[in-house]
């Protein structure tokens, strides 16, 4: 009986106390016709030794590759201390900190996280995290519509991650919110402020501004932010948190700064792990704090006057406000934020700046090397952070297959998302790549293209 501590004696004593003659009696209020005839497709239990071997074998099947894929999830070094501490039982197996006096560890850590994220994004306040970057963007869109007087339309450049755009649509669809997409400049790979002029008379609740955008290209964030504010729309920044170590934070974009900043927190110490769990972050200007969804931690004092931390502004939330809540969300990604906070304490401002700088430099160096391969070209002229689109002389799928056989995951195939770009692939080289890795990629790519 895995994980059941009861001895036969316990069972009999407990049943006697209850006045039941068997455990089955405890289910006597359930109509017998509803009772299950068993779990026929659930295999018999394994012990820990057996499942461990099975999982080890499966993990080994999946192998290890030298990966140049980015596209919203980035390979960064994660200090060993991060997860050794985050998986301590006291963090790992604790509940949402409703009982504040028994949860000061989690609550103080979340307050520290909020402080860091507010500073990193240049905003006034941060919540305690969202599910992931894509859903955080959808929540920001809903927040914009809630706070806007008259428009239920959101303007999103097509340089925003295509999946993020899908997620926003899926989440806002049933609330009668319209999503309008903006084209990008084929030459620079960024959103042209001129393209916005076409929307002269239309009203929007918000303009979404990615930085860097999905192509790795840096947008003209100041002009875009000012345009939004000129239209009485909110400016919502979707940002890479590593990039914020060197890029202007959303809070300082344009004249007044963006109003909301969201993004994917994964680069901050979270393993790639086939896509999750990650965490989304959301920060905003003070004026919007009561429209912000998700958990928020506040500092207060206890009855002896000592500092302490609590969940606050709960009146926004579903467990208090029910159908009138700002969102139905009730979990944040607490454990991920625990890891991210430790990660940021270990890297510090200069460490994160170097990680960003090295990733940037590696990607530029890789681009330069790859362009020496016949038929390989950089697609966009705009300035880059740590990703870039290249075009290949033939179908991307074939190149990727060839490189995979050589132990390399070449990048993300863009043919489906942006067919207009031809045989285009999105590549990324973070600080984890050595110059030997870049040379290796270049050499293997040359091999694959020249000897297909």
């Amino acid at each position, binding site marked *: 009986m895995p994980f059941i501590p009861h001895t036969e004696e316990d069972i009999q004593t*407990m049943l006697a106390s209850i006045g039941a003659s068997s455990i089955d009696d405890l*289910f006597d209020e359930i109509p017998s016709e509803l009772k299950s005839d068993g*779990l026929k*497709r*659930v295999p*018999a*239990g*394994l012990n820990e030794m057996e*499942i461990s071997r099975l999982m080890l074998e499966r993990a080994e099947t*999946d192998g290890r*590759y030298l990966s140049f894929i980015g596209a919203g999830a980035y390979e960064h070094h994660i*200090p060993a*201390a991060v997860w050794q501490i985050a998986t301590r039982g006291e963090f*790992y*197996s*604790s509940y*949402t*900190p409703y*009982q*504040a*006096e*028994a949860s*000061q560890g989690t609550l*103080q*850590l979340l307050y*520290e996280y909020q*402080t*860091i994220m507010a*500073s990193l994004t240049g905003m006034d306040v941060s919540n305690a995290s969202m*599910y992931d970057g894509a859903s955080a963007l959808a929540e920001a869109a809903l927040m914009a519509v809630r706070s806007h007087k008259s428009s239920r339309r959101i303007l999103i450049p097509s340089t925003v991650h295509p999946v*993020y755009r899908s*997620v926003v*649509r899926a*989440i806002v669809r049933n609330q009668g919110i319209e999503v309008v997409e903006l084209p990008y400049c084929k030459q620079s790979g960024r959103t042209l402020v001129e393209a916005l002029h076409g929307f002269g008379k239309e009203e929007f609740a918000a303009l979404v501004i990615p930085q860097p955008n999905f192509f790795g290209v*840096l947008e003209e964030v100041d002009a875009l932010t000012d345009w939004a504010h000129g239209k009485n729309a909110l400016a919502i920044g979707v940002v890479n948190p590593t990039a914020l170590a060197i*890029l202007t934070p959303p809070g300082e974009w344009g004249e007044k700064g963006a109003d909301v900043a969201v993004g994917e927190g994964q680069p901050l110490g979270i*393993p790639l*792990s086939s*896509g*999750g769990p990650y965490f989304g972050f959301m920060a905003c200007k003070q004026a919007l704090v009561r429209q912000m969804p998700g958990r928020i931690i*506040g500092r207060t004092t206890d009855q002896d006057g000592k500092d*302490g931390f*609590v969940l606050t502004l*709960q009146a926004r*939330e579903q467990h208090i406000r029910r159908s009138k809540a700002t969102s139905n969300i*009730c979990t944040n990604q*607490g*454990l*991920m934020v*625990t890891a991210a906070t430790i990660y940021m*304490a270990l890297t510090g*401002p*200069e460490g994160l700046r*170097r*990680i960003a700088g*090295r990733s*940037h430099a590696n990607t*530029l160096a890789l681009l330069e090397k790859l362009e020496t391969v016949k038929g390989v070209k950089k697609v966009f002229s705009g300035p880059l*952070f740590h990703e870039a689109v290249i075009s290949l002389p033939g179908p991307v799928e074939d190149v990727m297959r060839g490189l995979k056989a050589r132990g390399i*995951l070449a990048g993300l195939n863009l043919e489906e998302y942006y067919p207009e770009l031809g045989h285009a692939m999105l590549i990324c080289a973070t600080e984890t790549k050595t110059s030997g890795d870049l040379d290796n990629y270049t050499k293997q790519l040359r091999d694959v293209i020249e000897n297909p």
Partner: protein
Amino acid sequence: MLIFEHSRPGRRNYSQSPGATADVTGIPPDLMRKTPPMLPEVSEMDAVRHYTRLSQKNFSIDTQFYPLGSCTMKYNPRACNSLAMLPQFLARHPRAPESTGQGFLACMYELQEILKDVTGMAGVCLTPMAGAQGELIGIAMIRAYHESRGDSARTEIIVPDAAHGTNPATAVMCGYKVVEIATDKEGDVDMDALKAAVGPQTAGLMLTNPSTLGVFEKNVAEMSKIVHQAGGLLYYDGANLNAILGKVKPGDMGFDVIHINLHKTFSTPHGGGGPGSAPVGVAPRLLPFMPVPVVAYEDEKYRWLTEKEIPQSIGRLSAHMGNAGVLLRAYVYVRLLGAEGMHRVAEFAALNANYLMVELRKAGFELAYPTRRASHEFIVTLKDLKEKTGVTAMNVAKRLLDKGFHAPTTYFPLLVPECLLIEPAETESKETLDAFVAAMKEILEEALTQPDLVKSAPHNTPVRRLDDVKAARELDLAWKQSLTRTATESPTLNAIPTVTPS
């Protein structure tokens, strides 16, 4: 002390940063940050020490009994953690080809199949990242179903008054009006209220069963019939699935869609408030609307099905494929349990709950539904105690912290005054339950003899009773450097000590 108060300008962890690069080139200066973000500048040891000590200020399952009703705080097997964190699993990029993830995908596929069997559903999608997102997806599918039939007059979702707050909040997020129906004295949904509420405007009913009152809705089959006859669909909130695991399948009760909180029934860690994970199961008529991706097994290979294969899908709700690492933990857990183990989960959750209920009654506590069996949880009401002594449910909860027990859920469900919703979970031993009863008995006596001791609790926690009102009124959501550091001490970019840096 906050981590920022340990911070000193220029302090650095050289082991945790790449060597210095030349200045960033190729980025226009107007896009570059001018002042560095306020990340802590502490040594690796001080960070380790700070967060290790912080962790010790938490209660957790690994250190305390957590009889938190509706949350199912049970043991999180350590093997689930270590096996989900095998290096290859952690290193796999979500956009890596499916061929590099056959081991991972095999686990996902088998988890889907197991959850289908457990819920009695025709299809399962693993991607929802939390219970509330599972609900959103479930109700969105109900909406998509009605719309696909051109049945656009259905504008209401019926929700019992005892439901979790997420139920009405979700219905509203999907553009529905919420109709609340009452609970009868026995804790069941009032059938007359239900009959009065249903009609051609009914899109569906959201139900938790066993309910948040800790009792099994005996009339669930009839409720299902009433709603279906009116053309509505039935949504099963899986928050309390632990109580009936292996015993009753939601599909057999007539439900069309269900979410399963893996962090409850399948014992993935709560992690101080997440990540959750809430796969959604659907009856055959909702299969065309499932969110993507879903794992398929064809020609001896596992692969993701996407919008191409499920064109009527309500779409994607997460950037990748949900909380994969949480799903791996749940997979390990279900394989450890096996079919027999799942039955035992419900059996021993029920045994512990009913035993604890009976023992607390014997100790002098009043039950909210004394005529009913407990499911995996039950409700004590302290209404009389409060009238007699002024001691509230909140006071008793805080006093439990002093005695080394986490508090039960308080003031939920809202319809029972001064309530404690108590769920012991199946992994606790009889001795722990007995110790909890003894503590509750002590508190009862304290309430009668020294009520101020209980009212001013907690006394032994790292902080005493915190001022929530002040927190909300004088919002302090981020530490301000200016309060304890002078401007000249602020961290600056490139502030590297000049002594032999590496």
